């Protein structure tokens, strides 16, 4: 592997396909081969990679988003701000202006268009970024506070944080599930996206959706087939037909599922899984 600053996003249409298993094991495997690695859990609504990693907390950074704060002093109660906000985050009453931070998208329109500057933007906490030191690699986690709904700003802040703090380090992003805004945010700046699926009609359905998304983003991507051996050949046929590279196939194996259930690292114990990681490492090393 030549590039020491690669950014790889590991995604899948759905949860439960093995994303966390692959990203945690791949990070450890690359680290054991003398690469500097940082793994980042971008599933900020429900990060749980930390359960699988034996790591010491090093630093916690508070993340904010900017939200208007009403200052009564010069406000003429003209009501313009409430009309401007397209997300119903402001209500203008006859005697006061109310702001609902959960609904605010931080567009600044109300603040900058208020004739009396009565709505300055202020930081409001939405979550935190935690940095951990594992035995062999770095681990970063973005965690949205309970009840917060805006995952995207926290994902982009987490990516920026990793960019700034980890130079010359391979970056592996464990993406949130789905095909909507959060996974787009987690994928768009990557060098390569790995989509994990399994060879069932479900897997194929989810893969198609994820592929659609990657194509709109004009992203480079490849596929890992997990639990290979169950199901049928439709996923392989689909990849061939669409010219999508299959990076590796991970064999279906109850022993692997058992190790996973305990949160243990898998590649030191299961040879075929280690070979699959090697396929992935070789593959991403080949990206120009």
């Amino acid at each position, binding site marked *: 592997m030549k590039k020491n600053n690669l950014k790889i996003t590991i995604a899948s249409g759905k949860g439960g396909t093995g994303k966390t298993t692959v990203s945690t094991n791949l990070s450890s495997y690359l680290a054991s081969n003398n690469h500097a690695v940082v793994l980042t859990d971008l599933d900020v609504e429900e990060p749980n990679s930390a*359960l699988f990693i034996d790591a010491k907390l090093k630093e916690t950074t508070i993340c904010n988003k900017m939200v208007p704060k009403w200052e009564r002093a010069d406000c003429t109660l003209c009501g313009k701000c409430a009309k401007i906000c397209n997300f119903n985050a402001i209500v203008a009453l006859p005697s006061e202006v109310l702001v609902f931070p959960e609904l605010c998208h931080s567009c600044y329109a109300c603040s900058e268009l208020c004739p009396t500057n009565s709505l300055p933007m202020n930081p409001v906490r939405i979550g935190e970024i935690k940095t951990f030191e594992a035995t062999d690699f770095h681990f970063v986690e973005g965690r949205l506070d309970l009840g917060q709904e805006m995952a995207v700003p926290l994902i982009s802040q987490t990516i920026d944080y990793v960019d700034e703090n980890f130079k010359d380090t391979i970056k592996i992003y464990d993406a949130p599930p789905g095909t909507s805004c959060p996974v787009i945010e987690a994928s768009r700046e990557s060098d390569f996206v790995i989509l994990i699926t399994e060879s069932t009609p479900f897997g194929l359905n989810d893969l198609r959706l994820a592929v659609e998304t990657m194509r709109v983003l004009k992203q480079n991507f490849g596929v890992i087939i997990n639990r290979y051996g169950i199901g049928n050949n439709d996923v392989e046929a689909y990849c061939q037909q669409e010219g999508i590279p299959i990076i590796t196939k991970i064999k279906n194996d109850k022993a692997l599922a058992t190790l996973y259930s305990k949160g243990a690292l898998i590649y030191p114990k299961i040879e075929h899984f280690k070979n699959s990681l090697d396929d992935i490492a070789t593959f991403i090393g080949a990206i120009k």
Partner: protein
Amino acid sequence: MKEIVVISGKGGTGKTSLSASFAYLAGAESLICDCDVDAANMHLLLDADFDKREDFMSGEIAKIDADLCSNCGACEAACRFDAIHRIEDQYEVDPISCEGCWYCSRVCPSHAITMETQKAGDLFVSHIKNNAQMVHAKLGFGAENSGKLVAKVKQTARNITKDSAIKYIITDGSPGIGCPVISSLSGADLVVLVTEATISGIHDLKRVHKLIKTFNLQAVCIINKYDLNLEMTQEIEAFLHDEDIKLIAKLPYDETFTKALSLAQPIVEYDKDCALSHLVKQAWETIKENILIKKGI
């Protein structure tokens, strides 16, 4: 009419195959809703025919009329989402980045920017293989209003059941603990929590249970792959006991599940008489009994 919502916090626990099994068992007594609008796939298990389709409109994006634009750049300066750029002498909006906040259109001195309502997805009402009906949806690319689409799916389902003989709405809930799952849970008479005996399974169960508690909903639980990790299963059982949640089934790790999935069949259709099917049938009977009992009585 009673509403049963199946949720699991995270994907991969077998939630969809279980809800499809319940729907299959309940037949025309039930109506099924797939609230995983981001990556719906229950239609695969139930042979949905995509009978009726409707556009789901939500959210807006800005559009610049090049003929009116004077290239002053005010819109680019205003946009906080980096969605407007000058490309070859003309300002253009990147639809993927645009949040639809209207700021640019309000500052444009030439009135060159209009806001267009976007199609955010499709809503379907289908007939499925056991003659029941199903409501499902597909969220469009990059759309974010999934909570609203989920609400629309549920509303459509309720409208259909009005003045009908349908006794149950069975909902396959959205994953996660955010806005879509809150929409999935609205109006639930009983929540079925599906978890698996893994370290993340119990973690997600606890998170999603917090949500159920907030809404004061009655819940029962199914542990999938319980024999993968017996210690973990014990831990889950202790948690359920403390929280007064009834455990209605413990399903073993069984490849039959996946075999059924690869033929796109619910387990109770694939092999009516296997041990797993019996457990699922029993679970469905217990759900029906439990839904009539209100908490605290």
